[in-house]
């Protein structure tokens, strides 16, 4: 996916003025935030589950190499072929190689954020493999040639009218804005695609070291179709997705859908192990699993390691007041919201995503709702520190910060400085006690007044009162 994270501010501002998007975001907020709250209220041992989930993720990350090798052994023993990819380019090359090896012309895909990291669809198309997205949201995006704006609800930024227009244009059928009818239309258009494909491409929500299995959760059933009908299946996933046992996967499954959409369980949970048996009528004959690093191993052992616990539920963005106001596209890459503000700089470079770690009020709600307790504000703060240390922040900002701390360490000078500021601003404010403009603070005063200082500092008043 094209990275546009360096244009965060411009993109965010544009989205603030997009009324349709604002309406869609409000709806997302009520559905997902309220849905999660209701689902969690039903679980008396939710906090215990969270702690158990953290323990599982940390225990696995602690010996990630051993668990990956264990997974590889178990998967291979069942006839799957495990590939390792260092980068997005590796993934793309591997998928095309596998497609050629098996004489594949047509591929279908179920939703996978990892393949969005790789921009796999474009690469496949350019290399003669026709590819069709089958998750309804991803299919709509493929028609519209747009990137997803949410990791769980990829097409949250579109209204049913937008989709009706798109379907009418692309399908040539009678336009309908009825949601159920739009869903049926997509089902009817996509069914032949499922039946004609020789290759199914999926992601994985977890991979299980014990059994060599790939675990996929879906609601639409497209994940099941993608991994059942075509004769070749490629599952592509990040190396951090490994869990030791089926029991561990189960604990995480109690948290994932509840945190994501407020469901107690997704409609389908499929655990796929190996290729189809000699007498089986369905299932792939060839099963390839690609394990992608793409910067993940760099996080291991660093201050940002906790980010590798992430199970991609999207709760952090659903609850983020910044995301709620600007939507996912503003973040400029695959992963929006707080999790993206930590991940994107790691993937695309700190200097190519300067705004992201700063685009948080540190309100802390993301960490509160994270099912695996990732301290997202602390991680963003750490990235701010790296930016500052690498002198990636602008010089006025650095000068302002340094001047403030220089002054604040000199109480006498500080007292004089603040005395002057309090007086001057008070005078400029006039009778209404409000300033409409302050030089150097136009970012504040553009849409807000600044309440005026009282005129004398606490320190001065306190001293004069105590003299009396």
């Amino acid at each position, binding site marked *: 996916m094209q990275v546009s994270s360096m244009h965060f501010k411009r993109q965010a501002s544009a989205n603030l003025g997009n009324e349709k998007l604002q309406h869609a975001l409000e709806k997302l907020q009520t559905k997902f935030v309220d849905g999660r709250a209701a689902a969690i209220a039903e679980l008396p041992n939710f906090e215990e589950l969270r702690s158990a989930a953290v323990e599982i993720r940390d225990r696995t990350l602690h010996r990630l190499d051993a668990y990956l090798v*264990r997974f590889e052994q178990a998967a291979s023993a069942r006839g799957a072929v495990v590939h390792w990819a260092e980068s997005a380019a*590796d993934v793309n090359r591997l998928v095309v190689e596998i497609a050629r090896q098996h004489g594949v012309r047509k591929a279908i895909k179920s939703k996978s954020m990892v393949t969005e990291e790789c921009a796999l669809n474009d690469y496949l198309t350019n290399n003669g493999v026709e590819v069709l997205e089958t998750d309804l949201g991803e299919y709509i995006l493929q028609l519209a040639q747009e990137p997803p704006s949410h990791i769980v609800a990829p097409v949250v930024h579109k209204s049913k009218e937008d989709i009706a227009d798109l379907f009418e244009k692309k399908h040539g059928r009678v336009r309908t804005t009825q949601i159920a009818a739009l*869903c*049926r239309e997509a089902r009817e258009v996509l069914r032949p695609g499922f039946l004609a494909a020789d290759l199914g491409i999926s992601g994985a929500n977890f991979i299980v070291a014990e059994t060599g299995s790939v675990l996929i959760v879906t609601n*639409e059933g497209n994940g099941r179709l993608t991994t059942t009908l075509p004769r070749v299946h490629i599952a592509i996933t990040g190396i951090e997705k490994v869990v030791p046992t089926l029991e561990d996967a189960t604990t995480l499954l109690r948290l994932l859908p509840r945190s994501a959409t407020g469901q107690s369980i997704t409609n389908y949970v499929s655990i796929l192990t190996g290729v189809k048996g000699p007498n089986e009528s369905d299932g792939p004959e060839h099963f390839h699993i690609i394990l992608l690093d793409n910067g993940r191993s760099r996080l291991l052992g660093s201050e940002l390691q906790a980010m590798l616990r992430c199970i991609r539920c999207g709760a952090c963005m659903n609850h983020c007041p910044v995301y709620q106001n600007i939507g996912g596209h503003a973040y400029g890459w695959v992963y929006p919201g707080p999790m993206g503000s930590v991940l994107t700089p790691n993937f695309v470079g700190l200097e190519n995503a300067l705004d992201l770690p700063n685009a948080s009020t540190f309100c802390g709600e993301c960490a509160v709702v994270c099912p695996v307790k990732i301290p997202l504000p602390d991680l963003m703060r750490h990235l701010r520190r790296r930016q500052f240390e690498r002198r990636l922040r602008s010089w006025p900002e650095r000068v302002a910060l340094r001047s403030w701390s220089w002054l604040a360490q000199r109480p006498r000078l500080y007292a004089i400085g603040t005395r002057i500021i309090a007086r001057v601003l008070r005078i400029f404010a006039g009778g209404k006690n409000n300033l409409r403009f302050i030089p150097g603070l136009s970012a504040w005063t553009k849409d807000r007044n600044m309440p005026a200082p009282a005129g004398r500092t606490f320190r001065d008043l306190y001293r004069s009162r105590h003299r009396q």
Partner: protein
Amino acid sequence: MSARENILTRIGNACASSAAVDIEKLIRSRQRGPIPPMEDDLTKRFSAQALRLASDVERAATLREVPGVIAAYLRVHRLLMQGVCWPALASYDWRNAGLDVQARAACADDMLGITGAFLGIAETGTLMLLSGALTPATVSLLPETHIAVLEKQRIVASMEDAWQQLRAEHGELPRAVNFISGPSRTADIEQTVTLGAHGPYRVLIIIVDG
């Protein structure tokens, strides 16, 4: 150096301090996480949860009654009395109930698929199906109506119990374990839940007492 070696080396260096953990022992311990508390009557729990997730639930006293229950359900919902079932269910007397059911994997045009279930999970009202030569996965997936026959004594409390049972009865995992919790659905358009996405539009679970 291959990508595999590069990745494993990087990870190994990052977690160098922790080489001594015996992961095989940890895996074999199969430690369970916290399981949500639930009532003792698993059938009741299962039914209530399945209904919540938009499955339909019917009861039958014996396996022999199943074709009749299915026929009645299809009539009420004005659905075709024709479809496919798992080869494992070939011996049911479908014809006597007025049903035209073929025992085979499903094709795209089949409107009704009848399956058994390895287990039911009471916690979430979920069906657990195993793929196999006699239990093809397509039957619960391609048709618009999926009907599953679940024996009451095959309802367990949690997914953890299901794993234990699976290991005891089968040793290893089949190609596909599918947990099914109601009809397929999507909320991708305006976060509005719509039943019937790419899989079935309706799921009927028949709980058999005897």
